[in-house]
């Protein structure tokens, strides 16, 4: 059943990881009802990692606060293992450092759990298509991260930290004040596709920031990822 009236999703496979059984089942059921294929569910970080690696779904719907491994750690480990699965973070706790960490570690999108069912399904589709799922809150965090890295003096001469272009900054600020891609496209006289490309570039630069850090992190698991300001 496709209550949202949208076209039936092309075959999209999903793994759902959430330690809250009620929530996990509801999410899985919504996905199945909407025509997605739920390959597996997981209730802690380790099984989320193991099952995602085993089944390589299109999308991993990942709760940020799992026992065992945190959401950011799961993302980092998947990126390290070269698993092509795209990750959508679901969190009940709002827009915070741990969300930013997970996105830097390779998650493609982020949604608060209070989002509606349709919004959630649309986010899973967008994630499967490789489109970043942005909330205003996440955009604010990402913008702050670029500001922080720049203020800290950027990277090393051999490895400069990619900075945002003025246009990317502008778009990020629009997203951070609640504008949708369509609205932004109309305001800037750009195509919807161009705006999306900018957003994807922003994500790419963000993840480039700490790719090296993450590779190291994945090996020395247990490092404090919550504080990216430390040179580590």
């Amino acid at each position, binding site marked *: 059943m496709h209550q949202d009236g949208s076209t039936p999703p092309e075959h999209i496979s999903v793994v759902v990881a959430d330690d809250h059984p*009620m929530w996990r089942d509801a999410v899985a059921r919504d996905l199945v009802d909407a025509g997605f294929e739920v390959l597996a569910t997981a209730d802690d970080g380790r099984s989320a990692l193991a099952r995602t690696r085993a089944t390589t779904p299109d999308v991993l719907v990942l709760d940020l606060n799992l026992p065992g491994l945190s959401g950011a750690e799961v993302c980092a480990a998947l990126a390290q293992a070269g698993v092509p699965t795209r990750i959508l973070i679901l969190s009940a706790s709002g827009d*915070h450092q741990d969300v930013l960490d997970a996105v830097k570690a390779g998650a493609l999108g982020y949604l608060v759990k209070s989002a509606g069912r349709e919004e959630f399904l649309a986010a899973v589709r967008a994630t499967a298509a490789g489109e970043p799922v942005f909330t*205003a809150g996440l955009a*604010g965090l990402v913008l*702050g991260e670029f*500001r922080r890295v720049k203020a800290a003096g950027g990277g090393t001469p051999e490895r400069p930290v990619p900075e945002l272009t003025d246009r990317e900054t502008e778009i990020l*600020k629009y997203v951070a*004040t*609640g504008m949708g891609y369509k609205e932004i496209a109309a305001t800037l006289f750009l195509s919807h596709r161009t705006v999306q490309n900018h957003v994807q570039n922003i994500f790419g630069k963000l993840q480039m920031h700490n790719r090296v850090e993450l590779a190291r992190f994945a090996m020395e698991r247990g490092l404090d990822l919550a504080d990216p*300001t430390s040179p580590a």
Partner: protein
Amino acid sequence: MPRDAGAEPVDPGSAVVPASLDPSPAGERGRPARLADDEHVLVRGLWRAVDVFRWLALAYATWAVWGRHGEIARLGGAVAVLAVLAAWTAVQTLRPMRTVRAYTVELVIGCSAILATRLVDDPEVITGGAKTIPSIWPTAAVVGFAVLRGWRGGLAAASLVAATSFVEVVQPTANTISNSIFGLLLGGCIGYCVDLARASHEALAEAMRLDAARNERDRLARTVHDGVLQTLAFINRRAAELGGEAARLGAMAGEQETILRTLVSQTDLAEVGRAVSGDADLRVLLRHVERAGVQLVAPADAVLLPRRVADEVVAAVEAALDNVRQHAGESARAWVLLDDDGKDVAVTIRDSGRGVPAGRLDEAVGQGRLGVSSSIRGRLADLGGSASITSGPAGGTTVELRIPNRRTNRRPTRHHGDEPDTRPSRRGTP
């Protein structure tokens, strides 16, 4: 060992007072009368030292009397005085009493022993500079008072001993004066150390209490996060699909979820440090504007401004949001974005409402209805910043406040904020 120190306040001069009837033998409010287990380790060490010192002082006094027994007129009296001192020393060893009352008794015994020298020695011997019978034994009482009552207690007890010595010799000798000064110094210094130790002990206890409170809050936040928030979000979501009455209940659950989420995410201890340093974090100051339909969007790091400036900015944001409420319609949503690009701190307030028709703001100024324009632009101009109010093609109004950030080339630190003026001098000590 002060294992039951003060637990059974024994008064040698009167009937034994049950501890339950005399909870405060020290007789002073505001300070723990029982110097028990939570007492600072330094204080406990001093008590042990006093107990040992008393024996050494007794041995020294006995040796001194023995050494000059030939010149003592009434040797029996001197022995009797030493016996009293030995008895008290034994009592304080077998059953240590760390109370003001016990040490008052000891001080009286010590001073009486000094005065008794007058009875057992000939005046010429005393004037000649002979030692008193108790010699340094009363010093134990001085140190005891210093430990009990800090530097004031130490000085008071030392003064009493010194005064007694002067009375005893009648004509002060060099020994009398130097001993008195020595006693005053000892009482004052030890008392001062004890004061410091107590203060630091209290500070430590307070820090531990705060830490425990924070841990408890974190634990609660986790519990709320793992259970309550998830459940409320779940109810909200399912109820919306059921519709009708359930949808209304679900919306209530959703509201509560938002409130709770904001509450439990307030776990930044560094806020305290910034509050002390005089800088304010805009993220914290603007937290209250967040409610249904208004979202605060902020970086993970603090957005710091001097307190006075920050308060003005908050007032401007409130004015802008108030304007949204009045003009953009009930259903309008609003976002407040905080952005510190290193040069300026920018606060952008955007709403999804109808927007301001071009020229309407200027018109309002012309009509004398200053409203938004004056309150926002005026405030920002006072701060050396600027405010721009625009209306987008997609509808809705965007108010952008820019405040120059005087802390240029600051390194964002998550753990403390510096006053801009004092930065250079504090650079090396993060």
